[in-house]
């Protein structure tokens, strides 16, 4: 088990290195001169030259690459061209908002998705099943930004139930979290339904029912626990999807997380922050995948790792 964990962690290293390399080359090889952009349109050629020196852009590419990788190891992502604060601080001050939003959305999605999936499986081929299964196609087809706007119109403008934007009140998180959750609810429900249907047909479920165990106990204790593994895969992958969805949701609801920071930084042409954020999103995804894989090994003793 320990060797498996060690090997799985080590296997993530090349991917992380690849993520950093792609981010480095994305910033260097795309057209446009970062020094000129940061200096602004009114800057003199000398100013541009000075900034180029300051950013190390006058060095050969491989020196820049080694510098970049070296400073990454010290968690140094440079300074923001917009606020002059270190990029790590800029991201660090916004990250808690995104994590909060993603966790609340994930909790909603898991609760609603698993419950809906169980209901669809038990009431298989009824209108309820049809509605729940249809919801998952709706969820993945829904433009998140549009759903957000419609929620603002209904709940903030017409009904005055929740604030339309910002993160000033505790109630502010309700609409962004619901919007973000919808995409995942359908997928989790669909996975739960098929996984539950498979398990409910097993012999041990029939045995449990035959010995007279209450229906609720059979569903939750005997069936659900055994149906959880494939559901967990989907949930793990959803957390990555939620981080991506946060970019859109945060912008719609003016939620002050990293997603909105990314969009704002692109408008400010604040390349160091954009680069840092892209790197952060990639790294987070790799780490989450690793955690999901390790959780499997813990949860399902049937899986042998060679």
């Amino acid at each position, binding site marked *: 088990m320990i060797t498996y964990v060690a090997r*799985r962690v080590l296997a993530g290293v*090349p*991917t992380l290195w*690849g*993520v950093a*390399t*792609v981010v480095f080359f*994305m*910033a260097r090889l*795309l*057209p*446009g001169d970062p020094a000129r952009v940061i200096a602004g349109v009114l800057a003199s050629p000398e100013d541009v030259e000075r900034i180029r020196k300051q950013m190390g852009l006058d060095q050969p590419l491989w020196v820049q690459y080694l510098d970049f990788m070296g400073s990454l190891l010290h968690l140094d992502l440079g300074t923001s061209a917009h606020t002059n604060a270190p990029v790590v601080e800029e991201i660090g001050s916004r990250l808690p908002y995104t994590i909060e939003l993603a966790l609340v959305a994930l909790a909603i999605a898991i609760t609603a998705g698993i419950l809906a999936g169980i209901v669809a499986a038990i009431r298989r081929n009824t209108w309820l099943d049809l509605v729940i299964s249809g919801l998952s*196609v*709706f969820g*993945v*087809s*829904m*433009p*998140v*930004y*549009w*759903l957000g*706007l*419609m929620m*603002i*119109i209904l709940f903030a*403008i017409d009904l005055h139930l929740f604030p339309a934007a910002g993160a000033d009140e505790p109630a502010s998180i309700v609409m962004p979290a619901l919007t973000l959750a919808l995409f995942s609810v359908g997928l989790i429900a669909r996975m739960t339904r098929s996984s539950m249907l498979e398990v409910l047909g097993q012999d041990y479920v029939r045995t449990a029912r035959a010995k007279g165990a209450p229906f609720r106990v059979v569903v939750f204790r005997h069936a659900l626990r055994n149906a959880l593994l494939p559901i967990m895969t989907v949930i793990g992958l959803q957390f*990555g*999807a939620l*981080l*991506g*969805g946060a*970019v*859109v949701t945060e*912008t*719609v609801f003016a939620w002050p997380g990293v997603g909105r920071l*990314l*969009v704002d930084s*692109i*408008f400010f042409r604040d*390349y160091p922050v*954009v680069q840092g*954020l*892209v790197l952060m*999103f*990639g*790294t987070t*995804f*790799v780490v989450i995948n690793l955690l999901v*894989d390790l959780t*499997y090994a813990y949860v399902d003793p*049937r*899986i*042998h*790792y*060679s």
Partner: protein
Amino acid sequence: MHMSIPASTTAEAFEAESLAPEAAASVRPAAAWRRLVGHRSAVLGLSVLTIYAVASIVGPILFPFNPGQNQLTTVLFAPGQEGHVLGTDNFGRDELLLLVYGARYTLSLGVMAVALGIIVGVPLGSVSGYFGGWADIIIQRFTDVLLAFPPIVLALALVAGLGVGLRNVVIAVGVSSVPSFVRLVRADSLRLRELPFVEAARALGVSPWRILLRHVIPNAIAPVIVQATLQMGFAILLAASLGFFGLGVQPPTPEWGELLGEARNYIFSDPNLATFPGLAIFAAVLAFNLVGDGLRDALDPRLG
């Protein structure tokens, strides 16, 4: 992940099924079409797409209209007012005409981005699966890295570097769809490589590239068609979100996402403006997903 679950009867059954001779047989188009039109939700999706396609081709011919021209006397009419069925926008442009004109951009964005994903992804995936070895390792690592970025983040990063506009949106969205095609075609090539007819071609001395082009890729095409349809919905969503941010196709081009982003500024006074473009995007994506699901059932009856 390398794991071995103790052999079960299902695993054996699956093995037997994938080795069956039908597995490599190409799908007969006529039979697949019959199954598709028997699929109720797929027919619904097809109808929506047909309406969109006809509207985007015929609409601009019947109702000539210049989206770049402002009509300051008709600004922000409510739906139904003075013959504007869906009202007018903040530039006084008829909302329905904008949507009809926008269908061209939104649909062609999706088609071009997915085409880019196929052109890059299918050759990479087939080489990766058929040849294996170093080519496989490098291509798979590269795919892993691309998959590590949420598609919207990757697309935003590319647009940040390349700049906005139709061409760059196609590139940004297209790149995001490459990994799914690589993965899909690789898995099929791995399977096809071992089948008797490919082995026979090898034994006859056919060159590897010719085997790839004539035998492997043609037999891997059915899942690619399904994936392309599903990706089309996703590409439209992604392209429209760039437009919504103001980082996609630029005004006055009436791309649906751009219209929605513009409408956001009038959400308190004229909520209708935001309703219609979003509904148009939603219906298009839903239609592609329904047709995609239908196609999967029609092309691969074993899965249904």
